[in-house]
């Protein structure tokens, strides 16, 4: 346990280290301006907006993610694997790309307007940001809830039903308490994504906390951007504490007993229609919009945006490395906090979430500083620093899933192994590891998916001249030459879809 504690301490220290740069930067600010900045009425207003955005995205993600998870695991919906992939895939589209596509399709003057003359109310401002971010982050809730549903002992529901509980009451009294930690874990990720996102609110002209961080950043006043980022972290810390309470793990009884499924009957049509509709909005629309540009536009060629297979290779390579390292890092932290319910273990686990809640450019800049000061010869040579940056940002996704699987291990199994004279390592290798493998794979896939779409840190730390699918999509958007975004966007969706198959396959074992 001591070694474990030290290892998790080390991991937590590593991923929190960029925050020291924030503190150090923040100490260089001039007090009066800093004070004005931090306590101004504008700051209060945007803080309110950011919290509203976060709360609404979280609520809607739950309202969307939980029913979809129930639908794909607990009913006789035809082709459940297909719908699972469709429901999870929006996670791979950068939300600001989704926002641009959404405006191009449904906005005034967009495709629908041009083709059918249908005027759909304009989607913008805070409500627009809530809509778009929800559509691209609810899969967090979907995936974690789904995992919880799959590992829960479903025969309990049947028991409740035989005791004359209605389906709703059975859900409320039996299913919900069991999957609550799963929902909470996904909701936390959605909440932190919402509060730290810049691109989508900026596109929607919503005034949120990250806007001011960027305002200072674009003024090259990095020290003030750092100060504001710390303020953001303070808000996030409160969220982390609250979630620690909600997601509290009354040791979830693991079990794989299959209960009966809900028969949808005629309802399966609207159900499939619902999932298709979500998939249409989130996946088909962006790809269609870009593809439309591919055929319509006739601009001068931009040589460096011309598609090359290595863009896809680079994306996959980076995402695989990030997933691997994140799993390695997540293991000690998740195991320690799952097995020992001490305050220290909880704090270390929570600490890994901080990097997820800080805007990417801020983390990127911190690592530029730390990277050039510690290992300058690796800076922008090779991908080590970049992969580390991904881990800093996305580690909590793996920690969360691994931890839930650790919680489901029955202590007695481990005790049994130990009494049979298996050493600690052997017990871990032969008993524990196989039991938490599903959690590790799920975490790895989550990190893979989000790394595939990561933009700000990639642009800052990739070896100079190395392009990925998303950096090309960005470059195309920046130059208003969307035709170059079509192929990379399509590949992004296809490759990520394939990675989902890994997740589904291991669940069937």
């Amino acid at each position, binding site marked *: 346990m001591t070694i474990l504690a030290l290892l998790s301490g080390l991991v937590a220290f590593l991923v929190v280290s960029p925050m020291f740069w924030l503190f150090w930067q923040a100490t260089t600010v001039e007090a009066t301006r800093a004070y004005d900045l931090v306590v101004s009425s504008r700051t209060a207003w945007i803080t309110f907006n950011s919290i509203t955005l976060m709360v609404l995205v979280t609520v809607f993600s739950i309202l969307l993610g939980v029913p979809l998870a129930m639908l794909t695991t607990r009913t006789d919906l035809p082709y459940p694997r297909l719908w699972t992939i469709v429901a999870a895939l929006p996670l791979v589209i950068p939300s600001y790309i989704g926002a641009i596509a959404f405006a191009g399709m449904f906005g005034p003057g967009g495709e629908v307007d041009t083709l059918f003359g249908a005027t759909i109310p304009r989607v913008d401002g805070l409500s627009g940001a809530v809509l778009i971010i929800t559509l691209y982050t609810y899969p967090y809730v979907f995936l974690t809830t789904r995992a919880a549903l799959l590992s829960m002992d479903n025969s309990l529901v049947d028991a409740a039903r035989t005791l004359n509980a209605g389906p709703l009451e059975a859900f409320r009294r039996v299913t919900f308490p069991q999957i609550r930690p799963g929902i909470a874990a996904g909701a936390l990720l959605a909440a932190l994504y919402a509060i730290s996102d810049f691109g989508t609110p900026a*596109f929607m002209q919503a005034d949120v906390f990250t806007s001011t961080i960027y305002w200072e950043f674009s003024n090259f006043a990095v020290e003030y951007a750092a100060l504001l980022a710390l303020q953001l972290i303070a808000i996030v810390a409160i969220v982390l504490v609250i979630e620690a309470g909600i997601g509290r793990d009354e040791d979830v009884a693991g079990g794989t007993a299959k209960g009966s499924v809900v028969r949808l009957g005629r309802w399966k049509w609207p159900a499939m229609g619902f999932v298709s509709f979500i998939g249409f909005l989130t996946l088909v629309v962006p790809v269609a919009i870009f593809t439309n540009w591919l055929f319509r536009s006739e601009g001068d060629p931009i040589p460096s945006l011309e598609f090359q297979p290595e863009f896809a290779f680079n994306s996959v390579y980076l995402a695989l490395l990030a997933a691997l390292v994140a799993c390695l890092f997540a293991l000690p932290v998740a195991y320690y906090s799952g097995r020992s319910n001490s305050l220290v273990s909880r704090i270390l686990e929570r600490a890994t979430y901080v990097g997820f809640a800080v805007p990417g*450019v801020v983390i990127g800049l911190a690592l530029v500083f730390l990277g050039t*000061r510690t290992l300058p010869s690796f800076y922008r040579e090779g991908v080590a620093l970049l992969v580390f940056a991904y881990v800093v940002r996305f580690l909590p996704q793996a920690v969360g899933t691994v931890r839930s699987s650790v919680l489901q291990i029955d202590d007695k199994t481990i005790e049994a192994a130990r009494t049979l004279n298996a050493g600690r390592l052997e017990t871990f290798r032969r008993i524990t590891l196989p039991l938490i493998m599903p959690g590790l794979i799920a975490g790895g896939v989550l990190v893979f998916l989000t790394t595939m779409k990561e933009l700000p840190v990639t642009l*800052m730390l990739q070896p100079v001249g190395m392009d990925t699918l998303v950096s090309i999509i960005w470059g195309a958007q920046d130059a208003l030459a969307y035709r170059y975004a079509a192929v990379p966007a399509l590949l992004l969706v296809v490759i990520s879809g394939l990675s989902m198959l890994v997740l589904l396959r291991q669940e069937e074992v």
Partner: protein
Amino acid sequence: MHQRDDDRTQRTATGRRRFLAATGVSVAGLAGLAGCLGDDGESAGAVADVGPREASVDSEAVSWDDLGDLEGELTIYSGRTRDQIDPVFVALEEEYDGLTLNVDYDDNDVQVNQILQEGDAVAADLMYSQDPGALAELEREGAVQQLPEDVVDAVPESYREPDGYWTGVSGRVRSILYNTERWDGDGDDFPTDIMEFATDDRFEGIISTRPNSGTFRGFIQAMVELEGEEETREWVRAMVEDQDIQLFSGGSDQAEAIERGGDDDPVVALGNSYYAARILNEDPDAPIDVAFTENDPGCLFSVAGVGVTNDVGDPELVAEFVRHLLAEEGQEFMMDANGEYPVVEDVDYVGDLPDLEELEPPEFDLSDFDMDLEEAQDLLSEEGMTV
């Protein structure tokens, strides 16, 4: 007011100094470590000290044929987009077999902040930016070095840093972008004085701008210098309160909204003309056009240019590269690809935009406005024009 301004100046000076000092200390401590790791951190000498390989550049149009060959590798951080500089880079790589250009694209402000954080380990040989304010920031923080004398002298003083710490490569004037189908009238129906845009009620509810861009801040700094701070504040305030100006955080987003022309989209935007050129390049029938004000901050001439970082591997190559940008072919690529104006006197402007003599943009030292960047930024925040 004065008291506050003094504080501000002092803060910038001491705050940044202290920051640099602290950075220096940690760098010194780690320099040994870097040495052990085999990093060749040796400085190969100053760019200003190496003479041209062949011809030097001047205000007359020099041809690439007369300049020294480019051979070796250069790393360029670019805040410009790929469509703007790809053509000239590709042409250079085709011209010289031994030349490799590693170009890193990111947002302009990210690039500047990144170079400043990289300190002595800066990965870029050059920064190519569309914003004089960004290059001026690099100069203020001591992150760029002086260019060779002939390069400096080839460009008029108002298009570069006076001491040659960075130079403009191509220029543009700020413009009025508008949707030709939705604007009631044609390009001549716009006021020729930018100040009237805040008071003319034809613009109420239909005008937009992008306040977080470098050139918009330059425009505000220029307005303060020409019209005075109080008038500038009044203009910003009227734009926000009376005209209900729509604010974008991206120049491309804004231009697309103008083109799209939905009911709630703006009809008129204050921005750079190359956004319209870009949309017309993709779709020649797009309903977007540009108009200009005259002899006021609204038609501020601004440049995109380059600065050379302190520690470059091959100073001669870097210097020759910059000469190529200022030579005739380099200037022509900028005109063709971006619809920009040349900065070298004897290169004639060819394109659809009005002649500079006609617009009479006011002349400024783009790297040293009376009001500094942060004050301009604060002015915008205080008057409510933020995104």
